[in-house]
């Protein structure tokens, strides 16, 4: 199975450990990633709050490239990217005038024929059963708290994925692989996301709440599918501990890390040793 791949800025920059993990894990499952040629920003950073047209045009250009290259599906492992792309696709579908205007701006006829999906949806397409059959390791020692954050399931009308307030898709996948996901309270709460630069205090407080709640419900690790969540919970964990005199020692995995481990990949191949909090 070959699929279009849109890395976005994070996976080629600060979160290239995530890209390493996604590529290794999907390769082990026989999914070939074909990176979108000449991709540009998805518009998640400043565009969507400053300029409505730009916020559609940026992701629309990427969609147009994917269509040009005949991609039926485009994986955007960062939920900010996938949401922006899905939103643009939805807007273009609903409004002929906008579709024509944006197509003229990006100099590509964007029809919205390429489906956009997040990482969990790729695993769903491969099939949980198939992944389970391919697994060589049991994840029995892991009691993950699955953390979806804000954008994997929201806005529900745009992403149309899982129950937006009580999602279960990561839990079902990891249960299939022998892990024991915990029920906890903060799986769709905000991690502070982009505030990490502008208002660190808020991010630390939110991160502290999430980590504490996961630990209180018996989790021994967190699982995320978002580079921003990973930064705020993994990289900032030391700062959280310092600020709140806490002793969090919570490893934060990408979903592809745990699936990769189950498939028998070495932690180094998945970029796991490059996390800030590592398993002792």
């Amino acid at each position, binding site marked *: 199975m070959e699929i279009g791949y849109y890395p976005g800025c994070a996976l080629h920059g600060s979160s290239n450990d995530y890209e390493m993990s996604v590529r290794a894990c999907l390769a082990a499952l026989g999914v070939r990633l074909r990176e979108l040629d000449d991709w540009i920003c998805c518009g998640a950073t400043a565009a969507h709050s400053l300029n409505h047209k730009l916020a559609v045009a940026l992701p629309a250009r990427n969609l147009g490239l994917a269509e040009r290259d005949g991609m039926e599906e485009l994986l955007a492992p960062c939920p900010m990217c996938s949401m922006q792309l899905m939103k643009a696709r939805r807007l273009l579908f609903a409004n002929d005038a906008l579709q024509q205007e944006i197509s003229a701006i990006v100099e590509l006829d964007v029809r919205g024929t390429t489906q956009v999906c997040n990482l969990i949806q790729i695993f769903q397409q491969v099939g949980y059963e198939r992944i389970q059959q391919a697994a060589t390791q049991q994840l029995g020692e892991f009691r993950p708290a699955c953390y979806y954050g804000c954008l994997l399931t929201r806005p529900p009308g745009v992403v149309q994925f*899982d*129950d*937006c*307030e*009580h999602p*279960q*898709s990561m839990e*079902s996948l990891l249960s299939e692989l022998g892990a024991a996901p915990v*029920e906890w*309270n*903060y799986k769709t709460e905000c991690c502070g996301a982009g505030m990490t630069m502008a208002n660190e205090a808020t991010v630390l407080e939110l991160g502290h709440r999430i980590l504490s*709640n996961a630990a*209180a419900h018996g989790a021994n690790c967190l699982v995320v599918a978002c580079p921003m969540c990973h930064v705020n919970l993994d990289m900032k964990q030391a700062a959280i501990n310092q600020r709140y005199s806490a002793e969090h020692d919570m490893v934060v995995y990408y979903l592809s890390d745990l699936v990769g481990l189950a498939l028998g990949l070495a932690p180094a191949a998945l970029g796991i040793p490059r996390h800030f909090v590592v398993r002792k």
Partner: protein
Amino acid sequence: MARIGVFTCWCGENIARNVDVQSVAEQAAQLPGVRCSQTHKYMCSDPGQKLIRDTIAAERLDGVVIASCSPHMHLKTFRKAAEHADLNPYLVEMANVREQCSWVHSQRSRATAKAVDLIRVAVAKVRHNRALEPIQVPVTRKVLVVGGGVAGIQAALDIADSGVPVVLVEREPSIGGKMAGLSETFPTLDCSQCILTPRMVEVAQHPNITLHTCSEVEQVEGYVGNFRVTIRKQARYIDVDKCTGCGQCWNACPSKKTPSEFDYGLGKRTAIYTPFPQAVPARPVIDRDACLRLTKGRCGICVKKCQADAIRFDDQDELVSEDIGAIIVATGYQLYEIGKPDGQGRVTGYGEYGYGRYPDVISSLQFERLVSASGPTGGEIRRPSDGAVPKTVVFISCVGSRDNAKGLSYCSKICCMVNAKHTMLYKHKVHDGQAHVFYMDIRAGGKNYDEFVRRAIEQDGAHYHRGRVSKITQEDGRLIVRGVDTLAGEPLTIAADLVVLAAAMRPATGVEDLAQKVNVGYDEFGFLCESHPKLRPVETNAAGVFVCGACHGPKDIPESVTQASAAAAKVLLMFSRDRLYREPEIAHVQESACAGCFACRRSCPYHAIDPAEIRDRQGQLVRRVARVNPGLCMGCGTCVALCVSKSVDLEGFSEEQVYAMVESLR
């Protein structure tokens, strides 16, 4: 030669403001076949009707066109006036120059021209009208009431008390409906069981009521006054006549783990059981999915215990047939399913409230059982998880109601009152407890209703917060309720011991099936449609079928009872005549031309077309043709449009008439 009178109404200023009535009358007088043309300020008034009667007699009119309002409004009025002047009422037609002309157009000259055209069309039609006679059908004086909640009980008793026999069909093992499970009722806080159970006993003992419990309507045939209804009585496994209701069987039954439907899963029941102590009939039923004898072939302790020899493990479903004249549907409601999986890995609405995950998040009907003396806790308010008395309770309004994003768009109407009642009942039992209500608006319209809510707030100290709850989580055994107080303008977090969700009212399951059986329409939510929201609130578009209670829309007890009595009155009114008269404007098949393709039969929304066999003198079958049942046909005309051989026509709206109307505009 046609002698048609045209009568144009001013309707005060309603028509005259935008239509030059005088000019219309003058132009109408010139139309072919028109003998005279008159106007009146209010044609429907007594002097207006007198003008019509006198003119019909003086001018010996053989057709009348009234140019005024919609025929829905006054066709009957004017037809009656013509009848008084000895003109066949079906020779009267109306031209709607108000709703379809003066009200919707602003240019006077063009509106006037359109009014003339509308009259022209009506005159062309009436020239081809035939005198028709109303259809007479006999009437069986027996009523079927579907649903034995408070509405069904009220309707059944009203009708039975007047001497007319009633067949009451209830799906559950006992009548009583949702009301039987309530603790106390607003706005008087009188005990629900105390007011309802005597009425239930009355039903059981009434000589004019035949009660079928564990039963559903399987099939409805026939038409107004002459329905034939088949009722499926599910196997009860009990000989109801022999059983004395002593209780030996259910006290001994070893299968005790089935969640009680009556307690909404908060308590457990045995496999042989009565749903609640005051059940009517006071006879047990065996749950065939829970009974060890019926599922695994062992046990049978109840047989040994029963002194009356009333257990029947070989009992079968039974079909009962009844001849019925009128049907009252009173199937009631169920609660909106909060946070239930939809089978595609998603949860329908409100996953954030944790209903079904956190045992101490319950629905308002479950809370009723916790407060009720006959409930699983004997009336002590104890939370499901650990049996502790909750010291802080949060009540959340509008769970599913008034929520286009996740739930249903309508207001469920009773929840504001239910919440106020619950805070009172709680505070009366747990004096040091805190009751919090999150609400969108307080809708307490009704006699003594707003006073009741004020009492909850001012006397019983309920804390009302205007705002929604965004999330409920569980921490250290408590429910953390996070919401917003929009009046204070700040987020609000309450650590609660119990959360009660006032879930929306939805029609009971299966109501669509029943509606299709009796040809009654229903809206997008499944609520049954009345014939007219103001003037015919308990009638439906299916003749002889009436609705009452919450199957028609969200309603409280007083309103359900009012509507039930109204439905009963309408049925008795229908039964007050020996024969029923129906409008003769129905379809008619010209059997000599019918090809027997039955496209009409498949398309008929009222199932009014049956195959008929044409036989020769030797009794040999010649062919099959379509035949219209005059009792069922509502005159919609769908069959006329579909008939390939042009052998169906509509009386009073024949193709000849329609073509004449179209031609007149050329």
